[in-house]
């Protein structure tokens, strides 16, 4: 990978830091009038998700990280790995449970996800923003109770549990926002 000097730092740039791929969130130029210039950088460690702050001497270079985001279709899991396919080349990638992370509870086969590849292997998976899933377990619905507030937990076919209105029943298909985990509406 190419090296990037501090004057090329900008948010979104992916760099290697202490052996881990990181993404720059913020970059600030600091210089005491008579002193060494430096760059204060806020980065997200793409493996752990942790945000860290580092200060580098201006002019210093860091190695770029071989990281890229790609749309891929989720195929299946075999108990050990989750398999994703590039839509153009049909090339398949196996992701560990760690890489799939929280996306796990939303994934249905055929879903198109954003898979972040690091050195060619999946590092993280972002599920579609909205998914439609069937309720497999919830308290019996209260028919006609469509106006009142109030909610109850419902378990979905992929394993996630979300809060839904009281009138919904087992077998109903609902739309959920995976970024917030919130119920959006009934599909049928």
């Amino acid at each position, binding site marked *: 990978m190419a090296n990037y000097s501090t*004057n090329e730092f900008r948010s979104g740039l992916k760099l290697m830091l*202490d052996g881990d791929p990181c993404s720059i969130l913020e970059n*600030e*130029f*600091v*210089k*005491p*009038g*008579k*002193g*060494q*210039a*430096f760059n*204060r950088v806020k980065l997200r460690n793409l493996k752990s998700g942790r945000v860290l702050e*580092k*200060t*580098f*001497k*201006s002019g*210093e270079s860091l190695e770029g990280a071989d990281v890229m985001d790609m749309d891929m279709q989720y195929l299946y899991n075999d108990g050990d790995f989750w398999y994703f396919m590039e839509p153009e080349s049909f090339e398949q990638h196996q992701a560990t449970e760690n890489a799939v992370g929280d996306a796990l509870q939303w994934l249905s086969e055929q879903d198109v996800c954003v898979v972040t590849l690091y050195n060619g292997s999946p590092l993280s998976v972002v599920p579609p923003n909205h998914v439609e899933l069937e309720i497999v377990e919830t308290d019996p619905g209260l028919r006609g109770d469509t106006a009142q507030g109030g909610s109850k937990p419902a378990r979905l076919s992929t394993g996630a549990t979300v809060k839904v209105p009281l009138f919904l029943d087992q077998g109903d298909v609902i739309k959920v926002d995976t970024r917030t985990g919130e119920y959006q509406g009934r599909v049928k």
Partner: protein
Amino acid sequence: MDNWQSGSSLEGLKQRAELLAALRDFFRQRAVMEVDVPLLGRSSVTDINIESISAVVSGNSGYLQTSPEYFLKRLLASGAGDIYCLGKAFRDGESGGRHNPEFTLLEWYRLGWDEHQLMDELAELIQPLFVAQDKPMATVKMTYAEAFTSVLGLDPQDTALVNLQELAVVHGSASWADESRSNCLDLLFSLCVEPQLPAGLVFIYDYPACQSALAQIHSNDKGQLVSRRFEAFINGMELANGYFELTDAVEQARRFASDVQQRAQAGQSEVPVDKHLLDALEAGMPACAGVALGVDRLLMQLQSAGSIAEIMPFSWDRC
């Protein structure tokens, strides 16, 4: 898009005009003469932390001046008396929330004064500007060591270099493990001490001897060598840098030579030493104190602006 327009509001431009007039007024009343020195010179600073912007002048190399300092000192040696310059300065590679490669600098010299008298005058210049905006400020003075020790619990000069490097690695990154004392101090002061400085106008003086630049050196009451240099901060933002000036041509030539050597070692561009300045010091520069103040930074504080681009008509992005 709308980059053809001014980054500053029209009201902001008016405040800038009023500030420039107020600064000139202040010095006129005190009989300090304005001098209009070149922005383009045949040599420039050798300071390892300041990069000049090069120009080509009729086929010869020239430099946009990083401050009017050397020209002003040549005038002092010529007998000009108390003088000031209010104009532009240029520094390559400096761009950010508080930096623009071209900026407005106010620099002045007082004959027979020391750095403490000059700090007092700086306060007399600054305070009324903020009072006029109903933003009166406290003025605080402390030594570099006091400020440093109160936040980090360490003496900046007695602490072993390896301990400063360890601390710099913790607060900065692994890249500080082999850095010089001066660079480690700069990092720790900027990152840890500056944010903790009291609000208002703060003077930090008696810098460690390794950060002398063009200041004289003396012993403090602990017997440590400290430089007779000060900096002014407003609400934690660096505003001005001043010295009880070095007038010794031999010592100045030694510091230039050391700069040139360090630049070569670091692979930095070669800058010709300003021989006219050395000749001027040789001829005799009167004892004086001098200070340079960032006018754009002062406007940022007066207008409570978040970035320097908001108070400049056209920052480099719009040029």
